[in-house]
Each structure stands twice: as structure tokens, then as C-alpha cells.
């Protein structure tokens, strides 16, 4: 157990960086490479790293299984809901230009919202997949 010390401390050190990098990739996706898909996978990678180093119980404290499984449909709902808002406000499905006063800004906001939905679904699905495979091994 004591031999794990370096690995555990190292993991603890890198975790905030991974989460920060995931958020950077998510919100900087408009200006540089990145977006919801990549950020979701990186965030899921953080949970998997916790599970590998500290065990499944620690990972489930960080990302409880119920929350993760609810994230899977929630992201799709956020995505589709953004589209439906456009529909309700009298434009086409997934037309974001109604979300603000200025159509250009509104579309930027729409992109952010949609990417958020993608992030939620992808990170939730990837973590849930990992949980499902590990649980089966027990």
C-alpha cells in the first residue's frame, strides 16, 4: 500500500489540471480546437483515473452512478430543448438566432448551449460505460 504513495499523490496533483483542461477545451472550443465531445471524454477520463488509482468507491463518491446515468438523457434533452426553444419562438428547429437580441450573439449562445448538451451526454455515457464494465467484473 505504501508503495502506491507516489502514484496516489501524483494522481491527486494531476486531477485538478485534467478538470481545468476539460473546461478549457469546452469553453475555448469556439476559438481553438475543442468542443463538447473532447471535453466530455476528458472529464470522463478524470473519473476513470480516480477509479483506477483510488478504487471504484472513491470514483462513485466523485460521480455517483445515479447522477451519471441521469446525465446521459439530460444532455440530449438540453440539445433538443435548445432546438425546441427556437421552434416555440417562431423560427425553425435548432435556429438559435431567437435566443438573444442580436442574431450573431444569439447564435454564439446557441452553440455554447448545444456544446453543453453534448458535454453532458458524452461524459455521462463514457463514465457509465466504464462503470458498467467494471461492475460486471465484480
Amino acid at each position, binding site marked *: 500500500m505504501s*508503495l*502506491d504513495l*507516489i*502514484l496516489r499523490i*501524483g*494522481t491527486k*496533483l*494531476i486531477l485538478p*489540471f485534467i478538470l481545468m483542461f476539460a473546461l478549457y477545451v469546452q469553453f475555448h472550443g469556439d476559438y481553438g480546437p475543442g468542443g463538447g465531445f473532447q471535453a466530455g471524454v476528458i472529464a470522463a477520463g478524470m473519473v476513470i483515473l480516480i477509479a483506477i488509482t483510488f478504487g471504484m468507491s472513491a470514483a462513485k463518491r466523485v460521480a455517483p452512478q445515479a447522477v451519471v446515468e441521469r446525465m446521459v438523457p439530460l444532455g440530449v434533452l438540453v440539445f433538443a430543448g435548445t432546438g425546441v426553444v427556437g421552434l416555440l419562438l417562431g423560427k425553425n428547429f435548432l435556429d438559435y438566432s431567437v435566443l438573444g437580441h442580436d442574431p450573431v450573439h444569439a447564435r454564439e449562445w446557441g452553440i455554447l448551449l448545444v456544446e453543453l448538451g453534448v458535454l453532458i451526454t458524452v461524459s455521462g455515457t463514457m463514465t457509465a460505460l466504464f462503470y458498467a464494465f467494471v461492475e460486471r467484473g465484480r
Partner: protein
Amino acid sequence: MPLAIDVLSWVLIVLGSFFTVVGGIGLVRMPDIYTRMHAASVTDTLGGGLLIFGMMLQAGFSLVTLKLLFILGLFFFFAPVVTHALAQAALHEDIEPELAEDRRGRAEAMD
């Protein structure tokens, strides 16, 4: 960009590439997992470090340099951590380091 900095950065990049190649050759040529890890660590420290320094000099003072600095810091912190984890996994699987005596014994057995 002054010529001197350009030349220096390219020298660093070429040196870094050289050490990366050396690490790769070592990875293939070394006999067992511990010596192979030893060879691979050349790629981590000298190869990666020199390459990133060279690229920093190429980039000048900008956001890119800061990002490269972050990468360098993460590299120097976590390459040893990962190597340590790998070595420990190998020990956990009861893989003994191959000693010179072992090899001599094998050579004598062949004769």
C-alpha cells in the same frame, strides 16, 4: 527573430529529436522491462524537454510559450510518476530484473 535564437532553437530541436530516437532504439534493444523503461525515460526528460525548449524559443513571448511551459511542467512531474507506476506493476507481477550474472549463466549454459 534574431538569427542566433533561431539557430539555438533549431539546435535544441535537433538534439531533442536525436535523444528521442536514441530512446526509441534503446526501447527496442534493451533486454528486459526495467532497462527498457530506463531507455524510455531518456525520451521523457532529455528528448521532450529539449524539444519543448526549442519550440518555446521558436514561439517567442506569447500564449503558446505559456502553454508549452505548462506541458513541460506536467511532463517533468508525471513522466516519473507513470514510470514508477509501470515499474511497480512489473514488480507486482513478480518480474525479476535480469542481472548480469543471469546472462552470464545463460551464456555458459549455451556453451
